[in-house]
């Protein structure tokens, strides 16, 4: 069976959802990416990616409780699913496997 393909950004967002655990919603993901990788990403891009991941069944979402901040709007929390987790794990294993096949060139040209 072919594994679902994930783009770089999708993988990043999926990972972040995993990292954030219970606290994963749009803005949190943006901030986490900024914090961990010092990379500026746009909120709309994150949202669109989250919905796409949800379509693929890699994350699931539900609305949180009412808040007084955020203009009274509730948060949409995302959580990584088992499928998402195992996909991440597969990706990681594959990467390590490939990494090991790389010849020892790491420092030669630097």
């Amino acid at each position, binding site marked *: 069976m072919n594994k679902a393909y994930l783009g770089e950004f999708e993988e990043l967002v999926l990972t972040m959802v995993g990292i954030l655990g219970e606290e994963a919603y*749009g803005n949190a993901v943006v901030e986490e990416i900024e914090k961990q990788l010092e990379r500026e990403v746009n*909120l*709309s891009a994150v*949202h*669109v990616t989250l919905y796409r991941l949800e379509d693929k069944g890699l994350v699931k979402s539900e*609305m949180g409780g009412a808040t007084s901040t955020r203009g009274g709007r509730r*948060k949409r929390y995302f959580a990584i699913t088992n499928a998402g987790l195992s996909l991440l794990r597969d990706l990681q294993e594959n990467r390590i496997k490939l990494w090991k096949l790389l010849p020892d060139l790491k420092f030669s040209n630097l």
Partner: protein
Amino acid sequence: MNQPDPPKRAIRFLEWFCPPALAEGILGDLYEAFDQDVERMGVKSARRRFTWNVIRFFRPGIILRNNYSLTFFNNNMWSNYLKIAGRNLVKRKMYTVINAVGLSIGIAFCMLIFLFIRDERSFDKFHSKSASIYRVEEKSYDTWDRDAEQPYFYSAWLQTGLRDAIIEDIPQVKYATRYSGSNNVVVQYESKVFSEPLTFADPDFFSIFDFKSLSGNRDTYLSEKHDIVLTRSIAEKIFGSDDPLDRQLTITLNGENLQVTVTGVIEDAPANSSLDYGMIVRQENRPYFERNLSNWQSFNTPTFVELYENADPDDLAPGLDGIVEKYMAESIARDKEEYNIAEDVEMLTYHLTNLEDIHLDTDISWTRSSDPQHTYVLGGLALLILVIACINYISLALTSSAGRRNEVGIRKAIGARRSQLITQFSVEAVLLALLSLIISIVLVYLFLPNFNDFTGKGIELDPTTVLVMTGTGLLVAGFIGLLSGSYPSLYLSGLNPISVLKRLSGRVKAGFTRPLVVLQFAMSGLLIICSLIMLRQMNFLTSKNLGYKQDQVVVMNTNMGYNEQSSRIIETLRQTLTQFPEIEAVSGTSTSFNQGWSRNGYTIDGEQKSAYVYAVDHEYIPTLGIELKEGRNFTALDSNMVIVNEALVRDMGWENPLDEYLNWHEDSLSQGSKVIGVVQDYHFLSLEQQIEPMLLQNKTEAYAHLTTALIRIGSDNIPAAMDIVEQNWKKIAPDKPFDYSFLDEDVARQYEQYKRWTNIMTLATGFAILISCLGLFGLAGINAVNKTKEIGIRKVMGAESWNIFVMMNKQFILLALVSFVLAAPLSWWLMRKWLESFSYSIEIGWDVFALSIVIGLVVALLTVSYHSVRATLINPAETLKYE
């Protein structure tokens, strides 16, 4: 702490395009980011970033998550708008009717104008090769009327020999045909006599143009000199249901009989064809053809050419110049010398005009050409009526808005946004406009025959036309619906719900209605003044003393051509008819009124002069009651004498005209014709023209043939007299049709076009008045309702009915007066322009304006009075009992 808010507009935008399920989460995140931004970089930048972020969300990944596209609109609200709009239309029947009548007339006018323009533009486009068909034209130096500003003269009438020269010398030309005349000639088939139009053309005519063949072999049409091709209607008239092919007809051309054989039948010329042909025979049959063929001084027939597909008409110029050089170099040199024209002046050049452009070409006169200005005038009228109708809608909606205010207040209080209210009111307006559209289509069906009459068109409602017309109507309806709905909806939706619901403001101040009513009345006033002036001018034209008696005169063409025989038969007719007491006099002339003219140019003492020339007999002046100023009338025995008009005497500068001779036909042997009398100037041309020098001549050899009899009827029993004329004519000339008209009708026909425009103007004015009165009626009604209590109180306090009546009508009278003051200068200017086209016209006096104001006021008063009288008569106890 006062939290800064992100821009509302951006939020609304997001909510509009974002699927509702996602909107909350996204918005929350945006809010959060916004709050952080506020702390980091201030409110302004934060708001900007918020908007920018929202815009970044407007991407396929979000938008396409909408389940179905209709969520772009709010379905429930739309059905609600429609329902409310429908209910309102039904509830307020009077306004609905007033508005629908106005709008539907306006839309119907627009559709008719659209049909008119479409027809104008469709002229001659039905030929498959119309793009490569051209009319040849001359641009020649005008030696007759020398005018430094317009030294050139343009005409489509060319030499007979030109067609052959073009075929011979210009390789780009594929086909060429002369095309002349559609005058009626006498046609005989067995014992039946008809008078039908005859056209002279070349066989190429059928290769160039697409007029449809119905029978016969198109390739051999007119291959023999004595072949004839009939149109469908003429063939049906002559042969009925018989097959016309190969039958023999006799046509009379210039007094000579010609046997022709029918070789084909083609469809009649469509109404949008510039070529309006009759029966077609070869050019070679045209009278004087041989003589004209070699005469390059005589311009007598239009010529059409078809170029090869890839030929550029501009490339023909050298070839055409070559023809001028080849055939006319000598005569041009002679003219230049004779008239003292500078060497470098181009005396004559040929030009080409594409067939499709002929119809709207105003430089060159052509039978069916038309002035593009007509389109503008009609369009302007339609626009005026439409605007008047729109104003009705706006002012009625505003003035009656009191009743809608509670609805607006409640809708707003329960959360309707302003844009929703605007949509709701616009839906109402558009719905009404669509309703009007249906009525207007019916109106177009009903009025199209009249419209065709007025404009001289033959527009038919075939399915495509109806489709296109409905499309236009739909556009117009939608547009005016939105336009007239926009102001009321902006106004109503802007009401403050709190003050409305708490009834803080008593009366709605819709101040803008007054200027609108003034504008509307000014437009109606403009139309009233214009049509009054036009009617007066028409009345002036038809009742002006022309200097001769035009009633009870029968004009009868002998149909014998221009020759001695025709003159003799008029003499015979006179001898026969004058025996009857019913016939007062019979005279003959070469040209009757409004049947053309002939003008002779002659040089006297080195000076170029010209005069209109009429051949007449000795009965002419008494028959028409023309007044002789000096000298005497012709006698039956006179010959080679002239009677001139006063204008000619002035032109020649004669002191004693009766001592003079006038060499008007440049006779080199004698001193010309003796002047035996001077007639008072009379209008032998239409009143568009000044009275020019003219002479009546009698029995000058080869110039004095009479073609038309003028028969004055003495008794009031015209049918009986006509019977006598007909029976005797049948005896005298059994092979000629009894082809007559009445002189006064002929003369009136000169002004047909003006009459037509006056009719259109009057019709438009009628509709404009009707629509504005309906509007005024509605306004007055609302006004009366608004003032019911005031009137009640005034009456209780002792006001007379009369005072109240004045109070109710005062403002409308004032508005009407202001409007007329505005309309007067514009209409004065417009009408002065129009009157300039006549040499004889009325003065625009103050009385026209006074009369228009009176008409306007009376109509306005009558309209509003119904309501004011009702309001005045109502018992105050009725209106005040609820207080």
